[in-house]
C-alpha cells in the first residue's frame, strides 16, 4: 500500500476549491504527514530510548522533543548534556547543526500561512520533514490550516514517540544498538523523493553529494555549514554558467 507523500506527486493537482473547513484540512494533513511523519516514530522511539540509556530522565526526552524539536540536533544534545557541556558550547553546536534552516526560508511557503500566531508556530516547527513536505510539488495547493496541521502532527508524532521511547527504553536489551539509523533512513527517503521531484536534474544531487564529501574531508568538524555553503556556491556558479549559455530559466 502506498502512503508516501511523494506518490501524490503523480496525481494531477486538485482543482482550485473554496478554502476547506479545518476538519478536512486536518484529515488531509494526516494523509500528507503519514509517510514521512510515521517515519518519525521509530526515530522518536530511538531518541527517547537513547536518552534514558544515557542516564537522562524520561521527561527530559519529552521536553527536548517538544521544545527544541530538531531531530538530528537532539541526538547530539543527549551527548552534550550527559557530558555537561557548557551552555555556550551547546548554543554553538545548535547553531552549526541547525544553520541549514536559514536556507529553508528561501522556499518554505510562509507567505501562505495566515495569522501572526500561525506564522510564529510555522517557523517554530519548521523541521526538516516539514520543509521537505511543504516544498514538494504536491504541496503547492495546500491551504494555511493544512500546512499548520502537517507541522503540528509531525510535532506530535515526534514528542509522543520520544516519551514512549524513553519510557519503554529500559525494556531494550543492552546488546541491541543501531536504532539511530532511523534518522539516516528518513533523510534517505526524503532525499529520494526530493530528487524525484527534480525530474531528471541529476547534477543537483551530484553537486550536493560532492559538496558533502568535500566538507567531510576538508572540514569534518563543520561538515553541515561547510557542505551547505559549498553546495550553494556550486548551484550559483551553475546558474550563472547556464544563464550565460542560454537564457532559458
Amino acid at each position, binding site marked *: 500500500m502506498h502512503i*508516501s507523500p511523494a506518490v501524490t506527486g503523480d496525481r494531477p493537482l486538485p482543482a482550485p476549491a473554496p478554502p476547506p473547513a479545518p476538519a478536512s484540512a486536518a484529515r488531509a494533513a494526516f494523509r500528507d504527514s503519514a509517510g514521512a511523519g510515521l517515519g518519525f516514530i*521509530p526515530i522518536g522511539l530511538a531518541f527517547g530510548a537513547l536518552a534514558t540509556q544515557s542516564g537522562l530522565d524520561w521527561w527530559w526526552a519529552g521536553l527536548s522533543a517538544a521544545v527544541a524539536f530538531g531531530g538530528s540536533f537532539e541526538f547530539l*544534545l543527549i551527548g552534550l548534556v550527559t557530558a555537561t557541556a557548557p551552555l555556550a558550547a551547546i548554543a554553538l553546536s545548535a547553531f552549526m547543526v541547525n544553520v541549514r534552516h536559514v536556507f529553508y*526560508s528561501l522556499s518554505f511557503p510562509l507567505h501562505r500561512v495566515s495569522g501572526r500566531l500561525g506564522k510564529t508556530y510555522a517557523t*517554530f516547527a519548521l523541521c526538516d520533514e516539514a520543509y521537505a513536505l511543504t516544498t514538494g510539488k504536491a504541496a503547492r495547493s495546500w491551504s494555511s490550516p493544512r500546512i499548520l496541521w502537517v507541522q503540528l502532527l509531525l510535532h506530535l508524532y515526534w514528542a509522543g514517540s520520544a516519551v514512549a521511547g524513553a519510557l519503554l527504553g529500559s525494556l531494550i536489551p543492552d546488546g541491541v544498538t543501531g536504532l539511530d*539509523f532511523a534518522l539516516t533512513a528518513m533523510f*534517505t527517503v526524503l532525499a529520494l523523493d526530493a530528487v524525484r521531484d*527534480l525530474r531528471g536534474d541529476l547534477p543537483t544531487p551530484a553537486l550536493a553529494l560532492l559538496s558533502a564529501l568535500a566538507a567531510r574531508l576538508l572540514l569534518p568538524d563543520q561538515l553541515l555549514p561547510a557542505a551547505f555553503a559549498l553546495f550553494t556556491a556550486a548551484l550559483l556558479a551553475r546558474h550563472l554558467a547556464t544563464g550565460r549559455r542560454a537564457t532559458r530559466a
Partner: protein
Amino acid sequence: MPDTRYAIAAVLVAAAVTWGLRALPFAALTPLRASRTVQYLSARMPAGVMVILVVYCLRDLPLPHARALAPLIALAVTIGLHLWRRNALLSILGGTVTHVILASAVFTP
C-alpha cells in the same frame, strides 16, 4: 542524570538558537523571493539539503572496518525498498531493522 536545572537550560538554549535560525531569515530573505536566482536555488535546495543530511548522518562511518558494512547495507536496503515500493514508512523501518540486526548481532564492535 545531570543537574535538572542544567538539563532544562540546555534544552532551552538549543530551542532558542534553533527557533532563531528558523524564524529570523524570513524577515531578511523574503524580499529576495522574486529574484530569479533565488527561485533557481530554492527549487534545487530541498533535494541537495537532504542528500547532505544523509552524508552527515554517515559521517562517522568506520570505513576500513567491516563494521562500516552495517550502515552501508542498511542504506542499500532503504534505497532499494524505497525505489521499489515508494512507501516511506516501509523503507525507514526496513532499513532501521536491518541496521539494528547487523550492528547488534553480526558486526558487533
